[in-house]
């Protein structure tokens, strides 16, 4: 996981600087925003010439899953005060996955903190390396770095496409995005795709448990 996080951080740092985000701003994203998908999304909208509101909205919508993670890990960690704030900041895909993967309560807590702190340190160190490298590269197109951004998003979504419903939403997202790119400002097609997913999620045929609740 350490190697994956490091290399992923280098990609983010380089692509962020190439997108026109300065090295200090790139570091602020990794230190303060600290959620890979949201960070990539924010610089993606900036690179495409989207508005600040579109960039913030896209990043924030991608961060909603961290709220669900927080609700899962909070009862396992049982922390208060500043430790709770630290735990919140470290609540991401990796720390949550490792925490819930443990059987013993002590291992759960250790797994969360070690993974969260470890990823935080590596992510920031390698973001800095990538940002400095990206700064030195010159024309990003000659290095194919614009294509690397699309590949990064594809790699992030790939493991989430196993379910049938996810595949349907993915197809809808492609259609909506392609249809809207020529007619609305940059950043808006991505938000429209998210809106379609919300509609599908809310109105889709409920599973058995849902029906029981409704009845």
């Amino acid at each position: 996981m350490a190697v994956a996080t490091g290399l992923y951080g280098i990609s983010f740092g380089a692509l962020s600087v190439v997108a026109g985000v300065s090295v200090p701003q790139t570091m602020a994203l990794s230190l303060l925003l600290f959620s890979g998908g949201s960070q990539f999304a924010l610089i993606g909208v900036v690179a495409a010439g989207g508005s600040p509101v579109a960039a913030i909205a896209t990043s924030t919508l991608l961060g909603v899953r961290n709220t669900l993670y927080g609700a899962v890990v909070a009862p396992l960690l049982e922390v208060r005060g500043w430790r709770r704030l630290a735990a919140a900041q470290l609540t991401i895909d990796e720390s949550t996955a490792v925490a819930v993967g443990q059987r013993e309560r002590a291992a759960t807590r250790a797994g969360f903190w070690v993974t969260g702190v470890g990823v935080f340190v590596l992510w920031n160190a390698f973001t800095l390396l990538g940002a400095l490298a990206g700064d030195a590269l010159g024309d990003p197109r000659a290095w194919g770095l614009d294509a690397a951004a699309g590949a990064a998003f594809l790699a992030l979504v790939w493991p989430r496409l196993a379910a049938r419903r996810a595949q349907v939403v993915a197809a809808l997202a492609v259609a909506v995005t392609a249809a809207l790119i020529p007619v609305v400002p940059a950043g808006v097609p991505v938000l429209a795709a998210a809106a379609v997913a919300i509609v599908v999620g809310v109105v889709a045929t409920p599973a058995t448990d849902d029906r029981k609740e409704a009845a």
Partner: protein
Amino acid sequence: MTTTVLWVTVLAASLLSFGLKLAGHLIPEHWLATERVQRTSTLVTVALLVSLVVVQTFADGQALVVDARVPALAVAAIALALRAPFILVVVLAAATAAGLRALGWG
């Protein structure tokens, strides 16, 4: 975006990100345990990422174009199907686009 606007964007997005994380730690777990909430969150993540793939690969401003990014994405998809690690997927895509451009296309 100007430097100031970009800083505001970065800091606002960071504040909202932290707010979402903290909210998860503060509100009762059962509020979010409904299947509909979980399902919608998962689908929104998928839609956003897929949409970003399309924008990053086919958009040039407001135009839809086919250039070196498209074969690069195809190479990335093949690499993912073969279970290549993240960095290899990204490097192969970049190398494909860079190679095609060096040959004078896209």
